[in-house]
């Protein structure tokens, strides 16, 4: 037993917070905030790497690195954190993307870096909190906390109309969290616990009447689906991507919502999830094609990537609501792959924006002449995102589509597979309009330098990961699936757990 194990999650959670406070306290000049943010994020990354190194892979059940301390007596809120193979790699990914985000913002953020980096680090804490919380109230706190820095930073650092995008983001993500809170509190009134495992057990054991549970599950689903976003709840994403600093766009979409769906919707309400799965699958497939079609006709490259994200996120939704173990494993893999690819894509696009001050695709052309390295890396990321074999995107896409085809629904899988054509179309068209062809007026007249050392260092590890995960995905797949339990098996296993006397519901409540 490693001495760090009991406190490692707390360290990962608090380090960015400490960094945020430091940034806020120290003077705002000479890149001091940048360096502190970088240092903090690197230290956090180091801590997150402790997790896979000391994770007990053989252990099939339960959470690891767990801490469960009472925080507030009544209502009974616990500081309860822990990870399993579902959340492990997401925490690591968050750790990896943080320094990338700092480096991608290095030159982009010129005004008041202090505000930017302290909020950025606060956001990091919130996201890690979402991934590791096992107490629903704690989880909700982090969930809400994650909205604040995002909204503030979009409003402050927007490119054109930041405050409008921030308002939209806020409306879309905050209002659906209200029913989520209601639902969590309602569950508490029935069970007197916010503890994930206890709730999972009581719901599975049928201790809560099913009629209302449907609405509770729906409230959970709604809040998460907006965050993913699932079609047709994606209205905020395009504006957010267009306005948000790239470091935030990298983390806003996808992972948090998708993880929450897996853990707290399908995980807590398997029966309700099964009921609503056909709808989710249909929405997922619509979202896959819809996002790709809209990506085709965007004029702003950040918006194009936003709709691409809708398409990719929907593919993961398809895998989650297929409710198969293979699909779930593939979905986590794909979340990681999307996170890595978007890190690269957004860093490069952010770099282009810094150099040319526009996100209008048509203003570009022939940028590869002056930026050969940026072009090469962007092409590589584009190929990963369209699922070229031996790159990470292919593995997730292939496994999801093939599992859906053989275990869920042939027709939905076939329709979803059309995205392999559409994604190639919008990504390669983007590549061509930005980097190839004769130099445009803007690209010819602006003197720019190729990728800076910082930008290169930011994307190099991600590029390496795209290759490694594409060529050798099996270790990661193995590690993900070791702790996953498909919903049908889950119900049985939960029932087998001996009843914990502390969580027995008051007899009156059982009615």
């Amino acid at each position, binding site marked *: 037993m490693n001495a760090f194990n009991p406190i490692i999650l707390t360290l990962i959670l608090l380090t960015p917070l400490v960094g945020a406070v430091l940034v806020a306290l120290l003077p705002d000049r000479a890149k001091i905030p940048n360096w502190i943010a970088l240092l903090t994020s690197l230290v956090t990354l180091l801590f997150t790497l402790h997790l896979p190194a000391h994770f007990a892979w053989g252990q099939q059940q339960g959470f690891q690195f767990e801490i469960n301390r009472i925080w507030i007596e009544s*209502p009974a809120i616990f500081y309860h954190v822990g990870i399993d193979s579902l959340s492990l790699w997401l925490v690591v990914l968050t750790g990896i993307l943080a320094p990338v985000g700092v480096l991608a913002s290095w030159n982009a953020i010129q005004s008041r870096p202090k505000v930017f980096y302290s909020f950025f680090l606060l956001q990091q804490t919130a996201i890690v909190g979402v991934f590791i919380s096992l107490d629903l109230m704690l989880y909700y706190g982090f969930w809400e906390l994650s909205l604040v820095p995002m909204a503030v930073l979009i409003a402050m650092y927007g490119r054109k109309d930041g405050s409008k995008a921030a308002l939209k983001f806020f409306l879309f993500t905050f209002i659906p969290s209200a029913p989520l809170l209601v639902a969590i509190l309602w569950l508490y009134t029935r069970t007197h616990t916010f503890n994930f495992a206890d709730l999972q057990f009581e719901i599975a054991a049928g201790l809560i009447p099913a009629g209302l549970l449907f609405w509770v599950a729906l409230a959970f689903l709604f809040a998460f689906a907006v965050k993913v976003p699932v079609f047709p709840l994606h209205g905020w994403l395009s504006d957010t991507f267009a306005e948000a600093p790239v470091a935030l766009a990298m983390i806003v979409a996808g992972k948090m919502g998708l993880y929450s769906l897996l853990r707290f919707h399908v995980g807590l309400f398997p029966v309700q999830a099964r009921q609503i799965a056909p709808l989710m699958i249909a929405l997922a497939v619509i979202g896959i094609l819809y996002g790709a079609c809209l990506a085709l006709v965007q004029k702003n490259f950040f918006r194009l990537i936003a709709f691409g994200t809708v398409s990719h996120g929907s593919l993961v939704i398809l895998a989650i609501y297929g409710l198969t173990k293979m699909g779930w494993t593939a979905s986590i893999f794909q979340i990681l792959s999307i996170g890595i690819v978007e890190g690269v894509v957004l860093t490069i696009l952010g770099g282009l924006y810094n150099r040319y001050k526009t996100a209008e695709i048509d203003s570009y052309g022939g940028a590869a002449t002056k930026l050969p390295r940026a072009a090469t890396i962007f092409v590589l990321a584009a190929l990963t995102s369209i699922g*070229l074999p031996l790159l990470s995107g292919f*593995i997730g896409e292939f496994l999801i589509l093939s599992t859906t085809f053989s275990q869920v629904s042939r027709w939905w899988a076939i329709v979803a597979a059309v995205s392999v054509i559409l994604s190639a179309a919008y990504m390669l068209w983007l590549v061509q309009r930005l980097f190839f062809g004769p130099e445009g007026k803007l690209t010819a007249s602006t003197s720019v330098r190729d990728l800076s050392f910082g930008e290169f260092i930011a994307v190099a590890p991600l590029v390496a990961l795209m290759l490694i995960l594409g060529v050798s995905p099996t270790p990661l797949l193995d590690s993900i699936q070791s702790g996953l339990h498909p919903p049908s098996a889950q119900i049985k296993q939960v029932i087998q757990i001996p009843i914990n006397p502390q969580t027995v519901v008051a007899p009156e409540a059982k009615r």
Partner: protein
Amino acid sequence: MNTPLHLWLIPLLPLLGFALNSILGRGLPKWLVTTIGLLAPLGALTVVLNAARSLVGLGAGLPALPYVEACPNPWIALGSLRIDFALALDQLSLVMLLVVTGVGFLIHVYSAGYMKDDPGYARYFSYLNLFLFFMTTLVLGGNLLLMFVGWEGVGLASYLLIGFWFNKKSAADAGKKAFIVNRIGDFGFLIGIFLLLSNFGTLSFANLGALVAANPGWTGGVLTIICICLFIGATGKSAQLPLYIWLPDAMEGPTPVSALIHAATMVTAGVYMIARTHFLFDRSPLALLVVAIIGAATALFAATMGMAQNDIKRVLAYSTISQLGYMFLACGVAAYSGAIFHLMTHAFFKALLFLGAGSVIHAMGGEQDMRKMGGLRKKLPVTFWTMTAAVFAIAGFPPFAGFFSKDAILYYAYLHGAGGKILYGVGLLTALLTSFYMFRLWYMTFFGEIRSHDAHPHESPWSMLGPLSILAVLSICGGWIGIERFGAYLAPATGKLAESASSSHLELILSIVAVLVALEGLLIADKYYRRSPERPAKVAAAMPGVYNLVANKYYVDEFYGAVVVKPLLGISKYLLGWVVDIGIAGGAAWLLAGIANFGGAILQRWQSGNIRSYAAWLAAGAAVVLLFAFLQPVLFPASVPLVHFNLLLGGR
């Protein structure tokens, strides 16, 4: 004691070359780039030749075919799914590898001369090596997914090389078009893979073959659907109807690339794939019929387009599509070794034609329009004579290579039942057209007087002429082995050829007919393009409708543009982008704003930029929750005792 063949070196050496030249290439001196770029394919060729010793009776100590080398760790393993990095060598992949690495090496050598002044020299060689990596993976892949890796990868290499001069808009466009059209085919391929996986649970060729062989009752049904899906993939990669449109545009790439990728190797991958999975196609007469019809139709259709092109490379591009049609025709009549035979000879003479065309273009200072050429016979003797061998080979004159393979295909088509006679007829007509347009090219380029005044043609360097000469020898002798011996050698991998039902007279008669047809094509071309060069224009003027239709390639690109691309973009932009997105997504925003208006004052303050009102929001939310909690006993009486809300409020 069998020595291992080290098959893994075949793809990995080119990959190493790619890595070195792409990462370090810009800083290396040119001779080193060339050395790395040439050693990679040479090394691969050496390994292949070592494995091929058995062909010439030196096979002592070699492992028996089929021979498999697998990496102990799987590539993808999840649940019941397991995909290995397994390389499999059998007669079929050996022949294909010889073609790929052999012709590939020659074209690498040629490239060293052709591209020597290009600023992107190192990048060019790295892409070319990357192509070889993926192509050999495609050929050696022991399962369908590994083949798919190569399949997509050669598509990538093709994309990069077509768009090699990326500052040229037409080149970048053509690369993108090639990739996307190929993706349409790949969509079919993927569905085929999913069907195989869900029905058989494996993608390994050996396992699939054994499964099918063990169940003689499996015919048609899902196998037909699988085969059609795979064939859709083949129509994309091998430029068959209706997905051939990318190949003519692919001529934007450097000419050696056209020779290697868009003539000799990559585009034949579809044929190879069908031969590889022939045990599936054998069980589905319907799928075979589709393959045969598409192949024959493409052969004829592309040949008619080839007659009216003036760009020397485009003539060759259409002729490639047409010749690939022949190969599919052969697959469709289950003469797989006939298809591979033609694949091989075609690789020789078509690579030679392209390299010869490259030499001509090089000599003409980049001019590709045949109307400006002429009389190059004396200025470029080596190019002329080697190309002549290739033209006679593709037209089907004995004893050139093309005669034997084309003859074999026509023969087996003729033998193939009642419909076979129609396929034979189409094939014969195509042969006539082929002979005509190839001699048209020959006459327009090499005979008469030069029609451009500012060109100063000069013969190419020996790094280019050397490969031309070797390929010329192969174009002459490459078919002498004969279909019987070739088919017998391939039989373990591709199945036996149909026994000739009738006497050998039939074979002889068909051969004579084929030669006469080729001769007819030569004579027509001679009449129109040598003896009276003014006549083609008159003929074209006499029937402007037909001529324009053909010269404009039947407006197929325009048709696809109007029927597929424009509607897709239009629907995406207007219906989805404006109606649905503003309707649904915007509507949701309005709805949420409406909900937010519920606390209108707070919202107003928030809009004024006061972020702190967020706290007020939280308070309002909590108030709603508490209200709900208190009202709950009223709404759902007796469901929960009130005492629990005291807990919630913090009292006990």
